[in-house]
């Protein structure tokens, strides 16, 4: 291992900075596959359990148990990969941690102390507390855990928003020093990023409910349990021995409708907050928005399709073929004719303010003195922005169509439509990931973007090139990058396999007692004479 690292140290062409960035990108995008589902599904499960406690209807208990089981299968991978996030700032980005530590560590520590403790502990109570805690207290535990996950998001986004738009600090001895925590916690960037992210998370859970419920309604028809008469009336069947009774039908139909409604409403929320966010971003990070458009020249139109090669970073290469006139202006300013600055006008402004070359400081490693590229990788920002919007719109439209199709209570027999519904689950995930990749890549070459507000704070910015750990070798970064990528790959396969198994098993996968041949006890040592109060409802 040591020699391998030495060899990598000497022979590998990639520099530490690139490896650290790939690692941060891979681990963060991956972590954020689990996070939105946890946030979205947690609230859904809490609502379902509330409906059960209030109405006592069996279908709500089944919904709570089934979706709760999928929630946990996903949650645990989020927890496991979240640990990496907390550690890697110090491990791979020690210069960043030193520079921003006075501001950036606080929201992270607040997240641990005020949110993550609550989430983890109350979720443990919820998992193992069935039948042990009084009904309403048990319900309170899932609400506590679910609210805490949303609060977690708030603190993490406070930290991220500060990197997009630093506020509440003064520069003292070359480092930003916190002077106003409220400014950080009420950063206008945060106030729009938070609802945008939360609605994005809900849209993930909406699609998840819709796709899986569609599959089960489809399977009930395929297996001949439910039939549809010529006039469209649904005859609901009943196979009690496998738990596929009339209540089961209610579970899926209702879950599908809830999912579709969530998907539609959260899209509305995402669109409104996204618009607000874009307007702020045109102001705070104009280069990011110009790069989102691959717009070289000032203009007012939103590009639907730009041809050429955005990746060439050469403006002469890019021609907008289809444009919506005035749209870009509307996104930035709310009118249709104010010119929005393109890369060509922004570049000299950035160069004048922040220099054309990196300072000759050893902190920049091999890049010291080299020219600064202020234009983010445009093929990523341009397409990231469009994938986000496209997937978001598609998911919402599909949800509306789905509601229409199932208005009489049945899904069509078409296998392809079922597959489309199941694969549609991926669209909101894709939109979420694309949005994050866009906003993080669009901030480059800065890790802390400068605040352009004339009343803002001068000189609070940091180039990503200066943020990486100077003492950590290329070999170490390569080793961790390979390790994390491999482990995350394995975990993805395992989690998806587990989700498939539990989805296929239907409600009885979370409630084995629904199956008639179920004996309810461990085979080795089963005896029914014990005090029921001492038996946990669930054990690992």
């Amino acid at each position, binding site marked *: 291992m040591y020699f391998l*690292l*030495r060899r990598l*140290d000497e022979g590998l062409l990639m520099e530490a900075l690139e490896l650290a960035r790939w690692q941060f990108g891979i681990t963060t995008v991956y972590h954020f596959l689990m996070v939105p589902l946890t946030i979205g599904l947690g609230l859904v499960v809490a609502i379902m359990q509330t409906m059960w406690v209030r109405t006592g209807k069996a279908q709500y208990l089944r919904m709570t148990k089934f979706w709760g089981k999928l929630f946990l299968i996903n949650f*645990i991978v989020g*927890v*496991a990969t979240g*640990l*990496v996030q907390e*550690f890697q*700032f*110090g*491990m791979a980005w*020690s210069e960043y*941690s*030193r520079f*921003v*530590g*006075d*501001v*950036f*560590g*606080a929201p992270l*520590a*607040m997240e*641990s*102390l*005020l949110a993550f*403790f609550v989430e*983890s*502990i109350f979720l*443990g109570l919820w*998992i*193992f507390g069935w039948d*042990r805690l009084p009904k309403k207290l048990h319900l309170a535990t899932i609400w506590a855990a679910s609210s805490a996950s949303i609060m977690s998001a708030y603190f993490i986004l406070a930290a991220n928003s500060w990197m997009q738009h630093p506020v509440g600090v003064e520069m*003292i001895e070359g480092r930003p*020093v*916190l002077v106003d*925590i409220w400014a950080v916690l009420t950063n206008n960037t945060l106030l729009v990023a938070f609802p945008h992210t939360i609605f994005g998370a809900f849209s993930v859970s909406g699609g998840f409910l819709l796709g899986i419920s569609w599959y089960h309604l489809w399977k009930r028809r395929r297996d001949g349990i439910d039939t549809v008469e010529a006039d469209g009336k649904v005859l609901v069947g009943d196979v009690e021995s*496998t738990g596929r009774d009339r209540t089961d039908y209610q579970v899926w139909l209702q879950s599908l409708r809830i999912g579709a409604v969530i998907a539609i409403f959260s899209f509305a929320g995402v669109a409104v907050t996204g618009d607000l966010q874009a307007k702020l971003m045109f102001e705070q990070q104009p280069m990011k928005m110009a790069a989102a458009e691959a717009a070289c020249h000032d203009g007012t139109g939103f590009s639907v399709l730009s041809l050429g090669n955005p990746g060439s970073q050469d403006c002469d290469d890019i021609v907008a073929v289809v444009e919506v006139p005035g749209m870009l202006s509307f996104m930035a300013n709310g009118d249709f004719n104010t010119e929005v600055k393109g890369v060509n006008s922004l570049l000299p402004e950035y160069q004048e303010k922040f220099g054309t070359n990196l300072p000759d400081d050893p902190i920049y490693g091999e890049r010291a003195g080299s020219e600064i590229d202020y234009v983010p990788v445009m093929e990523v920002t341009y397409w990231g922005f469009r994938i986000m919007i496209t997937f978001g719109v598609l998911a919402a439209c599909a949800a509306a169509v789905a509601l229409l199709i199932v208005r009489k209570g049945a899904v069509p027999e078409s296998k392809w439509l079922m597959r489309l519904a199941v694969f549609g689950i991926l669209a909101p995930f894709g939109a979420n990931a694309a949005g994050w990749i866009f906003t993080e890549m669009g901030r480059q070459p800065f890790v802390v973007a400068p605040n352009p507000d004339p009343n803002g704070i001068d000189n609070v910015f940091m180039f990503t090139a200066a943020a990486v750990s100077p003492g950590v*070798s290329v070999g*170490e970064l390569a080793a961790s990058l390979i*390790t994390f990528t491999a*482990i995350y790959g394995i975990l993805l396969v395992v989690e998806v396999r587990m989700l498939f*198994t*539990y989805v*296929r*098993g239907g409600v009885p*996968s979370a409630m*084995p007692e629904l199956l008639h041949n179920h004996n*309810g*006890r*461990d085979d*080795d*040592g089963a*005896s029914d004479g014990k005090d029921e109060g001492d*038996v*946990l*409802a669930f*054990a*690992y």
Partner: protein
Amino acid sequence: MEFLPTLWFVIIAYLWTGYLMLEGFDLGVGMLMKLTARSNQERRVLLNTVGPVWDGNEVWLITAGAATFAAFPLWYASLFSTLYLPLLLVLVGLIFRAVAFEYRGKVDSDSWRNRWDWAIALGSFVSAFGVGATLALTTTGLPINANGDREGGAFAWLNGYALLGGSAVVLFCLIHASAFLVLKTDGDIRARYRGLLLQYLPVGLLPMGGWAITVHLSGGKPLTWLTLAIAVAGAIFAWVMAARERDGLSFLGMAVFLTAGTTTIFTSIFPVVLPSTLDPAFNLTAANASSSDYTLSVMSVVGLIGLPAVLLYQGWTYWVFRQRVRGDRIPQAHSVTIQ
């Protein structure tokens, strides 16, 4: 020494102690699942003694890391980047362990369970060792330069103290877990772990004692003579009480040993938080590594609200799940029948 950095040094020492106190036994239980458990049923008993609580225990680690970042960013940056590889191992161990806890019982197959049992046992071992090495090295020193960056290669941190701290925490976790299992199990299993506790406690706590004495001898204060003596007394008390089958008191003895031990270690190095083995002038101290007074004040308010609340609701969790776990009283694992 200023008040706020001192307070935060104490809080971080407290967080690490809380972590070792709580996750200490679930890491130990994880290792014991492969070391001593004899059947699947026994492994399930062990697993379910920590099932409802392990995740909450682990948050103490995350909080210790985040609080270090917030209160002592220079300490966080130097320690975590210098110990890149051992912390990578800690993370890998914790990732596998977490997923294994949740997934082990979800497929009804011996090979599936066996694979995840290894993940739990090895994951627990590696994380315990890595955490121990990290804590030992921040108290004995690392080759950091004036900027706080590591001089030397990827393994420049590797020395006897790393091995001492690593084995100290691994062995402590095993002993602590045995004391915990005596409290949480019943019948044969309970008797067996009491036997193991009695047999191995004296030798198992030696490395941690050795680490405390090492640090005490290099920078100890009059107070640490006292805490050291309390730690030894706690260990003896734990052993005697285990022999008399006073299991609650025995566990209390372990808690006293740990608290007095970590107090000795952290008090001895204070005000240094990370000594440099290259030049004492490069030492990171509570004063030169800390955040501004304003940030520390803000965090103090948050800590004063958050930490007592955590103690309350986490304590309540332990109360809710206070029953002993017995093989004949745990339900069948929820594995799935595909329709």
